Structure formats: structure tokens, C-alpha cells
């Protein structure tokens, strides 16, 4: 396949491209997925540390 003698190495060649494509698709799908911001997380920690102990 693709002029490469060993099917295992042809698979390696294709998987390199597939892994890159996976990264691109993941990046596009999750482009605006922020999760919690570091600043919000820090505020949350500040708030939590001000809390009285249970």
C-alpha cells in the first residue's frame, strides 16, 4: 500500500496522518469550550479557604 512493502509500516504512515486529523477535528469541535477559567478557579479557592471548617 502507498508503495510501502510492509502493511505494518503502511499502517504507521496512515496513523501519523490520522492522528493529526484527529487533533485538528478535536480542536475544531472544542474550539470555544473554555471549561472553568483559571481566574474563576482561583476565586473559588479563595472563597473556599474563607469558609469555616466543617
Amino acid at each position, binding site marked *: 500500500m502507498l508503495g*510501502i512493502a510492509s502493511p505494518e509500516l503502511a499502517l504507521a504512515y496512515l496513523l501519523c496522518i490520522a*492522528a493529526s486529523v484527529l487533533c485538528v477535528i*478535536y480542536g475544531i469541535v472544542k474550539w470555544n469550550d473554555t471549561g472553568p477559567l483559571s481566574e474563576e*478557579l482561583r476565586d473559588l479557592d479563595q472563597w473556599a479557604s474563607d469558609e469555616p471548617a466543617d
Partner: protein
Amino acid sequence: MTVKIILALIYLAVVFYLGYKGWRETRRASDYMLAGRQMNPFVMAMSYGATFISTSAIIGFGGAAALFGFPLLWLTFLNIFVGIFIAMVFFGKRTRRMGVALDAHTFPELLGQRFQSRFVQGFSGAVIFLFIPVYAAAVLIGISRMLEVGLGINYTVALLVFSAILALYVITGGLKAVMYTDAFQGTLMFVMMVLLVIFTYSALGGLTPAHKALTDLAPQMPANLKAGGMLGWTQGAEPFSPLWLVIYTTIIYGVGIGVLAQPQLAVRYMTVASDRELNRAVLFGGVFILTMTGVAFVVGALSNVVFFKNFGKIAVAVAGGNIDKIIPLYITKVMPDWFEVLFLLAMFAAAMSTLSSQFHVGGTSLGRDFYERGLASRGRNEITVNRVGVGVTIGVTLIWGLLLPPSIIALATAFFFGLCAASFLPAYFLGLYWKGMTRAGAITSMAGGFATSFFFLLFVHAKEAKAIGLCKAVFGVDSLAAGFAKGSGLWLLQFTDPNIIALPVSFILAVVVSWLSPRLDEGHLRLCWRNL
């Protein structure tokens, strides 16, 4: 020569401008150590990629691909899938969130805070500070040799000038300067590697004809490689032959998995403000790494066809047996003149981006982790302590650079990757995912993994053990495994990457000792997991 010097000056002017920008924006300790936790995703991804890929990944491993062929593409696959996708998605996001919860400023500090242990932070900092200068010296030696050949500068002068340039912007501008310059350097590397692969495939009539020509070249495979188990460049190696073990365990397993526990890479996850930057960095990083090692390995292997067509010899024969010369010779003899100049700059960029990050992580490991936390020394300005740490790291690297032989490049890289994986990976991974991981488990795993990896590197794995010579001095043999029956499992250990043994040992110690030792305080675990 004039064109070379003008382009080098333009390149340096941009690097200094970006270094100055980083310095101007550095006001607090978190700016110096974590780029203010507000880094742009493109800059983060390019910085991660450019740090990951040094000159030796392109020149050294590209030359190895000329020798071993396409099996090295498994390493590219791991570089992308493990080094980018798994790293950013499964390690990066948790590292960022836990890093904020624990107010960690460095990779050792993340581990130290997670396990509430000054020893863990101090030990990690010491391992990084002691061994990263050797790895950095290997990169420095490589690029200084290129400066010597490319611009005709004396080797020692090249070593000193190169270190001085890096010292100027890393000491003053901290991680912001490092990451801004990395992004520029990464972009230059990206453009040159894209041009290189387009040129090579075009010269050989396209993708499939190029591969077919390489397949047909198999009878030219040198006899010593055939004896070691090689069948051809696109045919691979005989399973479990000595060369198969070298390729699949050292190159692929050792370097491919070792990337997950590289402190200079892991710290970058904590430089961004949200998961969004990491998600976008996955996209940039996946494409970047394909064009780095993917192109280097494909072109390295195909250089055999080009050299054979033009000179009647395969690559390693043209290079007189020195595989580190194959890619530079390919650029000089086959590519156009204008390309040679720009490629030389791209290689400077690859070396500088890796070195700047090595100096920065070595410096913060010494300043923040070992001096401030491990030795509990307080009261001095945090930025100053880290600047002194970076300065000391550069000084030690320079001394190693003047002492070590050039042949140490690949060894030093494997040494550092191996030690980092065995020492840090189980504590880091289980620390992010398993509440049951205890302080004793982390300490035992780190010390046990380090000791096992170190023992195998010094006494068993023939490549390093022979070069270091301690095994020969103590036991009179190059490797302790050489005394076992030829072909047996124990005999084959001398060709097997130390981490095939050391990493499982480190994982087992982490799990078993954690089961047997008291759990960390529940309140602390709630804090660690608060943001996850």
C-alpha cells in the same frame, strides 16, 4: 556568506525583540515562572512543539530514519497521539486545574503540593537541575557544531556566543520571553519542513513512486544492518531481532512515552487561562509535530533514493558512516542554495527553542523547587532567586558543553527522557487521577524508578553503559547482560530500553506502597480535586 549573516542578524533581531517584549511584561513571580497563566493558544502550542522538537529530533533521528527507514514513523505516531493528544487532553487539562487549586508554579511544585511533601518537590527539582544541563549540553554541542560548519565560526566561540544570547533573554524575560521566541522559532521550523517534504516528494515523482523506489532499494541495505535483523527501509526489521528491539523499545517506547513526564513541557499546561487554549493547542500541535518528525523521518528514509540516484550510494555511505551528517548533507547537496541558508536558521531556531526551555525549567527547579522549597530558604525576591537559578543552569550546561564529546547527543537525550519517565510519570499520572495515591507511594515510586532506570543506564543497557564506562571499570564488561546465553531474554536486555523495566517497577511501587500506607488527608484531597 553575506546573505547568511544578514539573515542571521534579522532572525536575531526578531528574537531579541520578542525577548524584550517578554521582559517588559514580566512583573510578578507567576509571570516569570508561568507566563502569567494567560498565554495565547497558538503561542502555547508552538512553544510546546518547538520545545519538544530539538535539532537532534530532526538531524539525529532524521539520520536514524535514513538508516532504519519507516519503522520510525511509529515514533511520529506516538509523538502526535501521545505527545499531543493524550498529553493535552488527559494530562494538560487536569494539570492546569489542579495547578490552580494548589497554586503550583512549577512541575515539581505540582507534585510536591499534591503529595504535601517538600521532599517530593526538592527531589524532583534536584533531578531536573542535575540532569537537564547534560541534555541541554547535547543540544548546545549539536548547534555549535552546525555554526562551526555553516558560518565558519570557531566551535568554542560559537558555544559561548550562543549561550550568551540565550542567557540574555531567558534570564531577563522568563517564561514569557521563552514562549514568545519559541512561537516565532516554531513557525520558521514549520515553513522549512513543509518546503522540504514538498521538494523531496516532487523530486521523486510523488508519494507512491517515491515509496516504491525506496522499497526497491532493499538489496542495498548494508550487510551489518541485515545481520542485525533489518529487511529494508519500508520492509522493517525481523521481530525481536537486536535492531528490532533497538528501534521499537529505545526509540519508540522510550522517547515516545517519555514525553509525558517532561517537566519543561508539563509546565506549559499551567500557562493558559482555560481549557479552550488547550483544545486549540491540540489542533496546532497535531499539525506541527506531523511536519516536524513526520517530515524528518520520511525525508531521512527517502534520502537513500535521492542519494542513490545522484551518487550511486545510499545515505549512510555518502555520510561516511556518521548518521548525524545525513540530513545536513542532503540539504547541502540536494536542496537549492537559498533553502540551505534558511534551513540552517530553522535548525538554530529548533535548538534555541529547546535550550531556552531547558534553561528555564532547570533554573526554576534550582531556584523555586530545590532552594526555596526543598531547603526551605525564604526571604529573597522570588524572581531574583529564579534568575540566579537560570544563570547557574546555563553556566553548568556550558561546562558540560566544553567537556562532553559530540557523540553524547543521542545518549544524553535518551538518558534524560528515561530518567524523567521512570521518576515522575507514575506519581504524576496517578497523582492526577487516583485519590488513593499516597505520599509514601509517590516517594517510593520516584526514588525506585530513578534508581532502577539509573542502574540499567549505567550497567545493563549497552549503548549508555559502554559510553559511560562505569560497568567496564567495576565488572570488566560493557554490560552485565552480555554474560548471559546469547539470544536469551536476559541477554537481550542489553538492547532493551531501561524503561521497559524501570517504568513498570515505578508504577508497581506507586500502587503497592499506596495501598499499604495511610491516605492523604480528605480535606487536602478535596482541595486537589476541587476544580476537576
